[in-house]
């Protein structure tokens, strides 16, 4: 069964048709990529799936439930969680506190106005476990702004994972990274997918990474879904080559 199903999703920004009758079904457990040139509407599509903006028409179903136009806070509770193109962190707080906030939200302790911060063992345990899994443990006391760019992106993903998503959306996880950081991030995403058995969709421009790890690749060009398939099929797809990959790559 597909965990996420988009049916004829349309979105306009003024005269610009940013999502053109997009339909796709993402099966549970899939690790997939969305690729396409700048301005193809990839982030806009993410914004619609996560409830940040509402489609003009069409519907989005998550786990069989119609979630079209639902607010982000409700979608997060249902398990639709994202990381951001520019790491969206609490920059003045420590790595631990960044994850702590997510854990507090996840455990529904956010309304407690009198308890001490460290009075919830399960919250702390979750923070420690996430930091260990993502290799952030020795940076727990550093403030988010002190981290390297790569670690900031990892922390962004750590926050998302703390929410125990059922569907994880990663918006350009390697954007702005050094080659080494890219390799690490690629391995990390693969490891996360394996460890958490998590349906993961990522937007990415790094083709080595896309063809290296994605089970399925979907190609958006000017708001339109023009192709869908595995690495080999996409690399041979003439429409994709014309619109995005270019001939010299192959």
């Amino acid at each position, binding site marked *: 069964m597909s965990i996420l199903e988009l049916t004829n999703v349309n979105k306009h920004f003024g005269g610009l048709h940013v999502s053109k009758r997009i339909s796709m079904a993402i099966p549970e457990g899939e690790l997939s990529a969305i690729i396409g040139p700048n301005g193809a509407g990839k982030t806009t599509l993410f914004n619609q799936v996560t409830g940040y903006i509402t489609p003009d028409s069409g519907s989005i179903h998550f786990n069989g439930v119609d979630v079209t136009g639902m607010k982000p806070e409700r979608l997060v509770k249902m398990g639709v969680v994202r990381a951001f193109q520019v790491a969206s962190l609490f920059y003045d707080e420590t790595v631990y506190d960044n994850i702590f906030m997510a854990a507090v*939200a996840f455990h529904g302790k*956010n309304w407690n106005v009198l308890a001490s911060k460290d009075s919830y063992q399960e919250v702390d345990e979750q923070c420690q476990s996430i930091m260990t899994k993502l290799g952030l443990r020795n940076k727990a006391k550093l403030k988010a702004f002190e981290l390297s760019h790569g670690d900031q992106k990892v922390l962004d993903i750590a926050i998302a994972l703390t929410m125990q998503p059922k569907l994880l959306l990663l918006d350009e996880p390697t954007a702005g990274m050094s080659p080494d950081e890219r390799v690490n991030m690629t391995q990390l995403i693969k490891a996360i997918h394996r460890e958490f058995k998590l349906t993961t969709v990522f937007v990415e421009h790094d083709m080595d990474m896309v063809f290296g790890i994605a089970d399925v690749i979907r190609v958006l060009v000017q708001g339109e879904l023009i192709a869908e398939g595995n690495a080999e099929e996409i690399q041979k797809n003439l429409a994709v080559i014309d619109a995005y990959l270019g001939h010299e790559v192959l």
Partner: protein
Amino acid sequence: MNHRLETTALWSAYVLLFGGMIFVKNEHAIHIAAQIVILGLFAISFNILFGNTGLLSFGQALFYGLGAYVTGMIAKKFGGDHFLWALLLVPLVAMAVALVLGALSLRLSDVYFTMLTLAFAQLVWGITIKWYDFTSGDDGIQAIPKPEFLAGGLHYYVFAFLVVTVCLYLLWRLHRSPFGTILKGIRQNPTRVNFLGLNVFRHKLLAYVISSCFTAIAGGLYAGLDGSIHPDMFVWTMSGGIILMTILGGMRSFFGPIIGVAVFVLLEDVVGRSTQYWSFFIGAIMIVVVMLFPKGIVGVSRQFAGLFAKKGDPLEHS
């Protein structure tokens, strides 16, 4: 400086300094100390909104005046024995008012929120001035009676100090609670808080209600201090003064605001004796602080403490 050490040091200093005042025989000094703790409670409550949540309300004087008038009017009408329950009524009235005003103003963001809070406070100030039959208008309320056991400067100081200390303890718990942490998150990145599955507006509203509630308690305590209150307690210079004191003391620290209050009140007292232009000195000090030490007095102290601290411990944070 280590966070826990700093907290312990500041709490100890607070208790020793203001608790120790009960042994001071000087009536004037006790009166100054009472002003500092009462305004200190106002400033620290305000900073829950400002320093923690990032909401600059320019109208918190509304709740300060509200607390004073609820206490003052009830005690004046029904007698000194009713002073205490009037004071107990204050947080309830304040929370009800804050719930309505917060629901209206927190829908707006940034400067629009600030302007609307200012407008509400000025509106209440206007009503207080004009509605002479109910509020005594511009005359204010004088000779507010208190119960027998609170009479005299020292007795009232002990009472105010105890009430403020309990309030500060509760606010301090809030400051370091999960809710308090989420408030800091809202200040830095509300979108991300939303993507943690939380409703930002409701968290802001609760912060606003709690902050206003404690501000009103400070106002209620002030009504008993001199037994004299005035519509000026609602006016925008009152709200503005608290903002200045908070910035002066340091808005990123729990105790920062009360330190700013102490500096203000003491300067007014000391400099005010020799010249009526004491506010000139406050102005000059504010310019220096904002330009050279934007993190306030506590921020500067932390930097100095950092200079003497062991080097090479990047994990330490203030």
